């Protein structure tokens, strides 16, 4: 997997990988296996950067994942889209934060807080 050349994959294949790695990350997060969560997060970040680097910034293709049945997939898609589809991404994140299903609800709540909420204010000093 480490030698996978993302630049050779089309957008559909990248979307499939985004979902697959997000679902693996879901399991790792439930098990509090943070090194695995970070490893998969790094890979998903590479997909975002690959889509961003393509003509016209193709990250918008991730929008279809905002309605995926798995909350971790929705969370990662929302995180990737927060700057290009802020309203939809924010709504998705808020629903996860309000779900009461932890730990992801806490992650989503903190994401919003660090994006433009209380935690962002605290960090700015």
């Amino acid at each position: 997997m480490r030698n996978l050349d993302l630049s050779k994959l089309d957008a559909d294949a990248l979307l499939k990988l985004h979902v697959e790695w997000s679902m693996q990350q879901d399991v790792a997060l439930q098990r509090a296996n943070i090194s695995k969560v970070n490893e998969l997060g790094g890979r998903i970040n590479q997909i975002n950067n690959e889509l961003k680097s393509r003509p016209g910034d193709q990250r918008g293709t991730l929008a279809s994942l905002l309605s995926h049945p798995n909350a971790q997939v929705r969370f990662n898609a929302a995180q990737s889209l927060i700057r290009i589809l802020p309203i939809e991404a924010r709504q998705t994140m808020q629903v996860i934060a309000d779900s009461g299903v932890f730990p992801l609800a806490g992650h989503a709540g903190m994401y919003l807080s660090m994006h433009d909420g209380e935690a962002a204010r605290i960090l700015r000093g």
Partner: protein
Amino acid sequence: MHYRENAWLRHQQARWLWPDAHRWVRPDAARFLAPGGGVADAFPALSRKYNPNQPRVPAGNSDGGQWTDGGSGSAAPIGDIGFGNLSELNDFSDLFQITPSETDFDGVQLAGDPPEGIGHNQGPPLDEPPEIPQQRPETRSERMDFVRSAVAWIGRIGRYSPAAGIFLGALDQAEDLKALTDAIKTANDPPRSLDELQEAVGSTSKDGYHDHHIAEQTAARNAGDPESLIQSRDNLVRIPILKHIDITSYYATRIEQEDGSMLSPRESLKGKDFETRRQFGLEMLRRYGVLK
């Protein structure tokens, strides 16, 4: 919360109510309620079956006040199953009675019947509790899987539902699983005030809880903060173990930044003063449903 999720949660809680619970409400229950209040208002779940206009046995009769079917010439009480004189029980029965006041079933409702709109691909599948392992699972992953599934299930059906009580009671019997059981029991604690969370700190340890440093202990030591500040009452709270694990994990989780790089909250907080890290820690407690 989404309407459908609400309906589903209500259904999960209702599954464990007796479908004929209305039969155990005394016919004269209204006299125990505040003036103006009705039995249907006090027990909305029973309102489908409760009919205040249903005929009753006339006063003066030994069964006076009980529901009747109203169909026969003699107003015979329904549900008299011949235990003889049980009048001495009246002092203890209050709103509920031991013998059902009605024996008819106008349609059978099974406890697991889904309400309209749930099941049959119109909602989440019906929920069963996770299987209790015979012995303590060997790996951390297996233990976490069991704890998470139990916590999620209890969260869905309600911490104080009879089914959750039965499940936790069964878990209590498994000595091997005690640490897991303690974590499961406390994970759905409601948010509490800072005073409440701080109150228990310093007393003897309590099963299912950990003392948690609001501003992280290791980061504070690395920053050269004095031990008196790190271990002060202001920086310690007693929280459910699972929340402690989740919050500690979050500190180390790398998050995509505006410039596309990945940084954990712990890395973002590096170089910040103690009070900033403490305020950040309080915000985490709020977002993880620990602090009101």
